[in-house]
């Protein structure tokens, strides 16, 4: 009898420990998620809203700005994520080589960009590629360019600058994950492969990649989520321009809600589009990752 009351008391404590954190997440994550959905069924300006059913969702498919922002984000995604993850994977396998000298310094320098904020990195790269920036000065000095190039007002080059900035900021971050994954692989596996005469690239494709599959899956999902939610870089490097050529979905939601006359209902519908894309893409990646 005494024992059961003690267990009950202890169990009660367990709940007391977890409830504050759970409440925060319910009130500040799950509740707004539900209310965003309810909001997405209403139209109007400012706080003057009325029920409109699925009208906002129908509007999505005819909204050129929305469709362009989705296209832009998908462009960032399909170019940036594979390039960055491949680079991170190569760097991690080089850094994992026990014979590499100066490993500590190389590792520190490769991780270094993680120590800066997205806003700071955006500002630095924006300065590089401004009309009077160092990119133009250097390329003109080398004779590659005759006159200064207007990187940030060119629809393709502006995207390039954004992709370069994201790659700079996040490659080291992903290398951290791969390096941790590689350190879990028993070195004797590589020894055995070497004795069998497997080349470095063969070892990379036949040992490293298959054994790192869970980590690769994780980083792919994280990077996909991050890119779908891209905001800081786009807002600070190009502000979505030229025109809407670099606009991201998050920035579009921000503009709809907080610039000009707020359209909260429609903004909420756009935000649900991101939510659905995140869910669908993660689901596909997990399914594909499981099969391989």
């Amino acid at each position: 009898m005494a024992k059961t009351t003690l267990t009950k008391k202890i169990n009660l404590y367990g709940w007391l420990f977890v409830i504050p954190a759970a409440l925060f997440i319910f009130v500040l994550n799950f509740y707004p998620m539900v209310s965003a959905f309810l909001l997405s069924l209403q139209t109007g300006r400012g706080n003057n809203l009325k029920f409109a059913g699925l009208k906002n969702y129908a509007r999505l498919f005819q909204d050129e700005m929305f469709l362009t922002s989705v296209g832009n984000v998908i462009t960032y995604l399909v170019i940036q994520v594979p390039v960055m993850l491949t680079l991170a994977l190569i760097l991690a396998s080089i850094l994992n080589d026990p014979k590499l000298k100066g490993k500590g310094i190389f590792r520190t320098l490769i991780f270094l960009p993680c120590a800066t904020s997205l806003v700071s990195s955006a500002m630095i790269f924006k300065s590089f590629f401004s009309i009077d920036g160092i990119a133009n000065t250097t390329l003109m000095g080398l004779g590659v360019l005759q006159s200064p190039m207007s990187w940030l007002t060119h629809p393709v080059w502006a995207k390039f600058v954004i992709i370069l900035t994201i790659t700079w900021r996040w490659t080291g971050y992903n290398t951290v994950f791969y390096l941790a994954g590689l350190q879990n692989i028993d070195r004797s596996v590589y020894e055995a492969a070497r004795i069998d005469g497997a080349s470095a690239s063969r070892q990379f494709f036949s040992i490293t990649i298959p054994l790192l599959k869970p980590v690769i899956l994780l980083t792919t999902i994280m990077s996909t989520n991050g890119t779908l939610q891209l905001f800081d870089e786009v807002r600070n490097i190009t502000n979505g321009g030229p025109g809407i050529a670099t606009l991201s979905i998050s920035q579009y939601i921000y503009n709809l809600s907080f610039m000009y006359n707020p359209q909260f209902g429609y903004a909420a519908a756009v935000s649900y589009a991101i939510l659905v894309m995140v869910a669908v893409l993660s689901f596909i990646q997990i399914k594909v990752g499981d099969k391989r």
Partner: protein
Amino acid sequence: MKQKHLATIATYVFLCVVCLFSVFPFYFMIVGSTNLSVDIVKGRLFFGTHLIENFKTLASTVKLGNAFWNSLRNALANTVASLFVCSLAGYGFQIYRDKGKDTLMGLLLLSMMVPFAALMVPLFRMFSQARLLDTTAGFILPTISTAFLIFFFRQSAESFPMETVQAARVDGLGELGIFFRIFVPIMAPTFSAAAIVTFMSAWNNYLWPLIIMQSQESQTMPLLITGLTAGYTTDYGILMLSVTITTLPTLILFFTQQKRFVEGVLGSVK
């Protein structure tokens, strides 16, 4: 054998190029803060003598001290609150583990999939109704409890021996006492790893403060930086100085606590 040498050399060259690419923006930012805008534009890449001049200009154009203090206060408050709430929960989920709590943990993990963009509109409306705009509480509330940190502490608590808990109970220590007097001191490295990543992400947070920190008085460093480029011409000297000032605290944390930083980034992935 010769081919192998070439491959080794190529590897080092590749690493050096990557490291150069990684470091150059930092060099540019620091050097830029010591040069005048006109020289930066001309492509000057050496240290100049205008650091103090840039600082004076920056301090007279914007409320630098105020923004720095806002960033520091918000980030510290966020870190303390997050560590308290999430470590309690992580410990609770592991030490008092049962079916109900496992289900709840699984549910909380789903929140990691919810993009912030889907929350910002309702959160903004909630916070403006609750009069939390321009406040530290408003800044930190959405990021106090994260599934990432809870899970991180839960995984760390896995290595905390149950016998220790039982022995402490026999010794008459209460449940909260076990947590504060035994778990927290033993897990100090986990707490510092969690503190570093939480501090850094709060310090660097941009989108949420952009939405709710609307007055000049409540502006944080990232908002201050972006404000500097709002005009027609940008003074690159003071822009780079403000970027340097904002990056310095996180850079120092990174260099002095790299091991903990990496642990924090990895979280529960091991």
